[in-house]
Every structure is written in structure tokens, then in C-alpha cells.
């Protein structure tokens, strides 16, 4: 599989997930949807052990991997709450997709990384986009 095909599969699946998260919130509470999302992850597990080197991984990689699942899950749970409270998928999904902004700020503060010119432009645009996406003069 080429990188392009793999990328297109990612875009299609994650794009549909955004819709399903909104749709699911109309038939379930955020708590229950989170529970069943986890069930979906668990269903995948048997297929993942086919190429596993888990036992030989360094402890740091395991801690970081588990913590990434925890933070990702908390993010999904928060988004479900937003949907439960009436957020639209077409607004909330692009808004939450601005999260690399937070990653960059953390890399800046914790790892002492510098921003490239492209990333700086991205930060400015992300902030403007965030404000525009939240613009609802006739909010219901």
C-alpha cells in the first residue's frame, strides 16, 4: 500500500467517524457512546496481535502509548458531550481538528521547539478559524 492510499483511507474513515459521532449522539448519551466506542476498539484487538512486539517494548513506550489512548479517549468523550449539547458536526469537527495548535504550544513550552514560518502562519489562521467557527449570532 502506498502512503497516498493509506492517507486516503485515513481521511475517509476519520471523516465518516465525525458524522457517526454526531449521529450516535442522537441515539445515545455521551457516556454510553464512549462505552461502546471502547467496545469497538476492543473488537479490533484480536487482529492486532498478529504482528506484536509488545513484550519487547521499552517501559517508556508503553507508558506513552497508554497515556495517548487515555488523552484521546477523554477528547472523544468531550466531543460526545458537545454533540449531546447540540453542537453541529460540520462546526465541532473542524474546530476540534485545530488541536495541533495545542500540540505546538506544548512542544514550544516543554521541548523548547521553535516554530517554522509555515507553522506560525498555521497558528494565526487556526486562531482566526476557531473564532469564526464559533460565530453564532442566532444560536439556538
Amino acid at each position, binding site marked *: 500500500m502506498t502512503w497516498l492510499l493509506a492517507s486516503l483511507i485515513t481521511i*475517509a474513515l476519520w471523516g465518516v467517524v465525525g*458524522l457517526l459521532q454526531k449521529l450516535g449522539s*442522537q441515539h445515545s448519551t455521551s457516556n454510553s457512546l464512549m462505552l461502546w466506542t471502547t467496545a469497538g476498539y476492543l473488537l479490533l484487538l484480536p487482529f492486532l496481535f498478529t*504482528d506484536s512486539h509488545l513484550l519487547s517494548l521499552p517501559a517508556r*513506550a508503553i507508558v506513552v*502509548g497508554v497515556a495517548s489512548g487515555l488523552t484521546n479517549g477523554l*477528547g472523544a468523550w468531550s466531543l460526545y458531550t458537545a454533540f449531546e449539547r447540540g453542537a453541529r458536526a460540520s462546526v465541532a469537527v473542524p474546530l476540534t481538528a*485545530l488541536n495541533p495548535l495545542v500540540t505546538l504550544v506544548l512542544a514550544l513550552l516543554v521541548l523548547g521547539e521553535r516554530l517554522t514560518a509555515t507553522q506560525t502562519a498555521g497558528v494565526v*489562521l487556526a486562531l482566526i478559524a476557531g473564532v469564526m467557527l464559533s460565530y453564532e449570532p442566532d444560536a439556538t
Partner: protein
Amino acid sequence: MKPQLWHWLAPALMACLWWGLFGFLAKLGSADVNAYDMQVLFTVGTIPIAIYILVRRAGMQASNKGRFIGAVIGIFAGVGGIAYFAAMARGKASIVGPVTSLFPLVTVLLATTLLKERLNRVQMAGIVLALISAALLAT
């Protein structure tokens, strides 16, 4: 700011913060973990949330349709994640990052056509800016 706007915006921004932290951890994650093992560790990380929800037993109402959609979300998000790691392993991160960051476009197209969601002009322009900025940030 209108309170009803803040009602959904607050958890949405919270999601943004958690996922930003997730991105930071993914950045720290060692390069020698393969896509499958990463997804296993990732799944283990979500289990404490499920346990917390099960123990509290509050707000767990769902129809069978809701439960089914939830499970499909987990499967699609998981397979999408594996495809993402595979793309990263085969291509340059500086290209795969920006390309895959365009996934909200698919959600917007589906939500406006299938769910008939309506956006004002400012929000439409905001979506375009968000997609451009997500691609720039992912470089």
C-alpha cells in the same frame, strides 16, 4: 458570549485540549512502536474511562442503534489510526500530516448533505481557514 453557545463550545474546546495533549504524547512516542502495537496500547489507555463510566452507572441510556454506531466508531477510528500510522511509515510526515488533516472536509460534506446541517457564511469561511491551518500546522 451567549450561554447556550458556551454550553457546547466548552466541551468542544476541552476535546481540542485533550487531543492536543494526545498529539504531544504521540510526538514523544518512540518511533520503534509499530502501528498495531500502538493501537493495542492506545486501547488499553481508553479502558479506565470505560470502567469509570460503568462504575458510576449514570447517564448510560442508548438505543441499540446508538450502541451499534458507537462500536462502529471504535472500529473505524481504530482502522483509520492504523492506516494513518502506515501512511506515516511509508511517506514523509511533512506530506502525510497535512494530507490526512483534511479529514474534517469529509465530515462537513456528509453533515451538510445527510444531516442537513446549516452554517452561516462566517462559519463556512471558518471551515476553509481551519482546513488550511490544520494542513499548515501538520507540516
